[in-house]
């Protein structure tokens, strides 16, 4: 048996392979497996329907957030259209499963592929544009997709929305919250693994090179346009898969949720979680979904207090303020996000009491 690796009290890496390992220590791997066992064996049975709903939402949003992080955090292309891509995925799944009769297991990846194509289309302006101009082009993409979702009634049924059939895999009906928990989290794990490993390949390194300095990257022989488009495609694939899962989970979908606010929410997740950190995207999704649910709970309590309800104050703005404040505070106080916070906490434990 080989020697177990534990955390060293410093950086003693001698080769690049050591930098690239997913798990720094065997302890981390063991902890992760233990966590997964608890996640799959205990959590779905210990939590009530509401908590299950929240956890499922976290898994779906985390998939989309990882996709956006590949684009923003690793390739350095700020996209404001992720919410619309999420919507494209949801609608693609809905249309495929109702009109084309695709089964669930086929509809979700196909929705992802369709969204990847749409994403590549809207990434095309990166042919000539970069930086802020590209950001604005994706903003235009957001509005155009939103418009098409509402007004292309032959395809999307406009504001009526679409009702999806229940999930069934190979004839087994899986439409409870608990079975969706397994579907969502297994998808999340596959997508996370893919993203983590993608960043260890030459593709991932090319993305990072483009992010850090696109001119130098081109000088080193990386065809920038195709890699940027690839990044757009992968990122939208994630959004599409997440959107498809969401559509199946919600059972009926309408055009409203896929607005600019959703895109901004995803960017907020990526930033709050930590740019360029796959795990960070999951933390960010957890944070934002938690914030949303927490505010809903707080609003419920405040509305039942006589003073507030008598004054006729609306609590909806509270959400806007808290959401904005979370973004602003994270950027000002910990720009590297929750992933960095978590790293600091861990290393404090590890290095205690001689943390220098």
């Amino acid at each position, binding site marked *: 048996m080989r020697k177990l690796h534990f955390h060293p009290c410093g950086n003693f890496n001698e080769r690049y392979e050591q930098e690239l390992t997913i798990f720094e220590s065997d302890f981390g791997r063991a902890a992760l497996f233990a966590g997964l066992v608890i996640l799959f064996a205990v959590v779905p049975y210990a939590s009530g329907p509401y908590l299950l709903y929240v956890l499922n939402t976290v898994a779906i949003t985390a998939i989309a957030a990882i996709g956006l992080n590949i684009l923003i955090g690793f390739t350095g292309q700020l996209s404001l259209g992720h919410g619309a891509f999420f919507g494209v995925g949801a609608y693609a799944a809905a249309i495929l499963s109702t009109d084309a009769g695709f089964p669930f297991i086929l509809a979700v990846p196909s929705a992802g592929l369709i969204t990847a194509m749409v994403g590549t289309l809207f990434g095309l302006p990166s042919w000539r544009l970069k930086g802020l101009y590209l950001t604005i082009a994706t903003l*235009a993409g957001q509005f155009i997709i939103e418009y098409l979702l509402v007004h292309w009634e032959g395809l999307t049924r406009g504001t009526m929305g679409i009702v999806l059939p229940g999930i069934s895999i190979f004839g087994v009906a899986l439409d409870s919250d608990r079975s969706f928990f397994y579907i969502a989290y297994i998808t999340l794990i596959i997508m996370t693994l893919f993203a983590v490993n993608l960043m260890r390949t030459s593709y991932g390194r090319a993305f990072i090179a483009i992010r850090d300095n696109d*001119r130098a990257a081109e000088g080193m022989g990386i065809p920038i346009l195709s890699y940027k488009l690839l990044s757009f495609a992968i990122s939208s694939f994630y959004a599409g898969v997440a959107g498809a899962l969401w559509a199946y989970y919600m059972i009926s979908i309408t055009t409203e949720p896929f607005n600019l606010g959703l895109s901004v929410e995803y960017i907020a997740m990526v930033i709050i979680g930590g740019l360029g950190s796959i795990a960070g995207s999951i933390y960010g999704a957890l944070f934002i979904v938690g914030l949303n649910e927490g505010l809903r709970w707080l609003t419920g309590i405040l509305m039942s207090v006589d003073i507030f309800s008598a004054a006729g104050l609306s609590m909806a703005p509270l959400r*806007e303020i808290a959401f904005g*404040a979370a973004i602003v505070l994270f950027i*000002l106080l910990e720009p590297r996000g929750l992933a960095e916070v978590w790293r600091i906490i861990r290393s404090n434990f590890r290095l205690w009491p001689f943390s220098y």
Partner: protein
Amino acid sequence: MEFFFQLLVNGLSIGFLYGLAAMGFVMIFKSSSVLNFAHGELMALGAFVFLVLISWAKLPVYVAFPVALIGCFILGFVVERLFLRPLIGEPLIYVIMLTVGLASIFKGVMLFIWGGNLYTFPDFLPAGLALRWGNINIPPVYVVSIAVGLVFLMLFGLFFKYSSQGIYMRSVADNQPAALSLGVHVRKVFALSWAIAALVAGMSGIVLGTINGINVHDLSSIGLKVFPVVILGGLDSIGGAVIGGIIIGLLETFTGGYLSTSLRDVIPYMALVVILMVKPYGLFGLVEIERV
């Protein structure tokens, strides 16, 4: 034909207002290359301050207007000092996201105080200012707003061309480290540009509010419409912003008049994509030449 001319006039007036709204935006971009997503909210804030001064404090217009503008100026200073100064030197995405967060906060605060209702200013413009030409009617609001806009446009043109502060601003926009090493007070430039941008935003918010009434959601969505406008004109050209505004305004009114009203709101963005593909740096923007 008459319909055509009325649309033309409406389009020109609306477009001019877009250009006006875009001016403050270009201001910030020119000095710090930051896309300000809180622009629409700054416009709405200016309009609401004016509303409070004029209908609650009952100040006359000629007092309320400057006071509101001074309020916006100070607000711009404060925003820069509290939120943007700590981010000097950080990657741009953080700064842009910060303005997104600020937009959310401003919007929430305004919704909290004023709610999502539509407010209108009391009618303070004399009706004699209306222009008539045959059957085509230009209401006084448009006349005044175009006049105000032209004055501001000229002032800014002169400011950037001749005043030392304006030249400092341009130098910072062009190359921040070089400007720093030549002794330009970059922090002061940022503070001033945010203050001026907030002032212009407030001014355009007040003008737009006089025409359409003030509503948080409407004004913040106009803040987003600024993007196609400035892209068309080139992100760093103030004159281009006005011309871009007029083109977008005409495009919108003609689409709304002849094609469909629902297409009206999305056509600027479609135009935006086309423009970006054909002329990536806009009509008057500075073309960045890169060689690898």
